[in-house]
């Protein structure tokens, strides 16, 4: 396997090259950086539900839907990418995604350690420094290969990220921003003065240890040609805007185990507010009711509480399926579902909630 140190690339190439390598069965590790900003969603995500597409179009920030898993990210020149492409039948390739992440995230951790950051992997696929996420990763089967795509946040502006997300209310966007500021960090924050170039060098050194075939600064011509061919597919509207399931809620994952979600509350087709919840590690940190008009916190009139109750529980007083599905989507463990739903109902209908 060869290491390809490609430096700064136009944004599309940072995505198209690893897809091309996977579809050709061309193994390797790619280290690169995008020259400009863009948003990228995971394979299973719906661009229209994830992103404020109108806003992004207006400011000229493009977006991409990749073939690997993971969530929505805003990428720009403040981030350094590492992309691992390996044949799924290779004896070097762990068959289990968790082991795959473990093996191929280790060099990224070593690179951060070499820069004095003291990083750890938070299973399955986040890298943390001082308990906060400094690197996001996603993976999947692409062609006949397994692929891991990740980035180190050298610099990152959560406000720009949140502005590009589609959110039901301003309060929801503010909650996402608050959680990102609390739960994410950057190399620059932890070690001021550490540039993207330094991070790139550290990553190259660390990943060279798993690449027995040396290093190149350019890709073979067939990979570049394949990337050009794939560009038509990945930039076509039917790929980019492939519709996902329409959930009644909106959820944003800040990092593994940390979510912000909102579900509309209303009756007879009229939405008068949102139930907004924040979770970390399987428990609810916040439960709030947000009226639609002002998005300000409210205790709500008694009639509103009654209406909320009707929306959240069925005639037998059991939590409705939508609430249960939202919690599953927020990675609440099965054995905690009942307790968490009861907690939400109590807090949501408590005066002053």
């Amino acid at each position, binding site marked *: 396997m060869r290491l390809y140190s490609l430096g700064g690339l136009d944004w599309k190439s940072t995505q198209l090259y690893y897809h091309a390598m996977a579809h050709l069965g061309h193994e390797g590790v790619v280290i690169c950086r995008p020259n400009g900003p863009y948003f990228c969603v995971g394979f299973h995500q719906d661009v229209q539900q994830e992103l404020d597409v109108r806003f992004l179009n207006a400011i000229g920030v493009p977006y991409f839907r990749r073939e690997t898993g993971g969530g929505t990210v805003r990428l720009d020149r403040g981030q350094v990418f590492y992309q691992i492409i390996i044949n799924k039948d290779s004896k070097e390739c762990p068959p289990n995604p968790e082991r795959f992440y473990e093996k191929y995230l280790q060099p990224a951790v070593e690179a951060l350690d070499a820069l004095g950051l003291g990083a750890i992997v938070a299973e399955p696929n986040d890298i943390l420094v001082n308990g906060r996420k400094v690197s996001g990763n996603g993976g999947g089967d692409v062609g006949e290969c397994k692929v891991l795509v990740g980035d180190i946040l050298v610099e990152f502006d959560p406000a720009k990220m949140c502005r590009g997300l589609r959110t039901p209310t301003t309060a929801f966007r503010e909650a996402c921003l608050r959680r990102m500021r609390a739960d994410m960090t950057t190399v620059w924050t932890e070690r001021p003065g550490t540039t993207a170039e330094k991070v790139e060098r550290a990553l190259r050194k660390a990943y060279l240890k798993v690449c027995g075939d040396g290093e190149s600064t350019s890709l073979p011509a067939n990979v570049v040609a394949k990337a050009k061919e794939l560009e038509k597919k990945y930039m076509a509207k039917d790929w980019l805007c492939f519709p996902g*399931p329409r959930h009644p809620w909106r959820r944003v994952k800040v990092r593994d185990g940390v979510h912000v979600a909102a579900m509309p509350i209303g009756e007879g087709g009229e939405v008068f507010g949102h139930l907004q919840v924040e979770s970390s590690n399987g428990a609810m940190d916040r439960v709030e009711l947000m009226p639609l008009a002002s998005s300000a916190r409210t205790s709500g009139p008694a009639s509103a509480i009654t209406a909320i109750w009707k929306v959240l529980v069925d005639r037998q007083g059991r939590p409705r399926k939508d609430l249960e599905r939202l919690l599953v989507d927020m990675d609440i463990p099965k054995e905690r579902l009942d307790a968490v739903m009861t907690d939400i109902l109590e807090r949501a209908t408590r005066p002053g909630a």
Partner: protein
Amino acid sequence: MDIGGYKVPDNLLYHKEHMWARVEGDLVVIGGTDFMVKLAGTVKRVVTLEEDDEVEAGKAFGTISTGKWTGKLYSPVTGEIAEVNEDVDANPKIMNDDPYGKGWIIKVKPSNLQGDMAGLMKANDGNFEPWFKAEIAKHAKK
């Protein structure tokens, strides 16, 4: 039947990519095994080819996403998709809750059933259990 904590009903046929098949009249019902969904984690989304699309034995007909990983779903038989389970589309977690029942994924009208069945395994075949235990060891999380 239970092997290593994974349910393996003995009335089904199994494909090496951890898919199951059950013949129902002139159709073959296809889903992911208990082993596959337990290994994957909570299923967040399933995307498949559509009704009337052709599928080929051993080739991917869809993808399964758990948020952290996007994997492929392989067809045990060749034929034409007769039905896609809309419940799995609406609530993918039923693949975790009931992988051999409500969590079925597609129904296929097979075009080479006898030939394809010869390449599939039964839980009570003598060599199934050793193979399955080797798969558990190979894929074990730790």
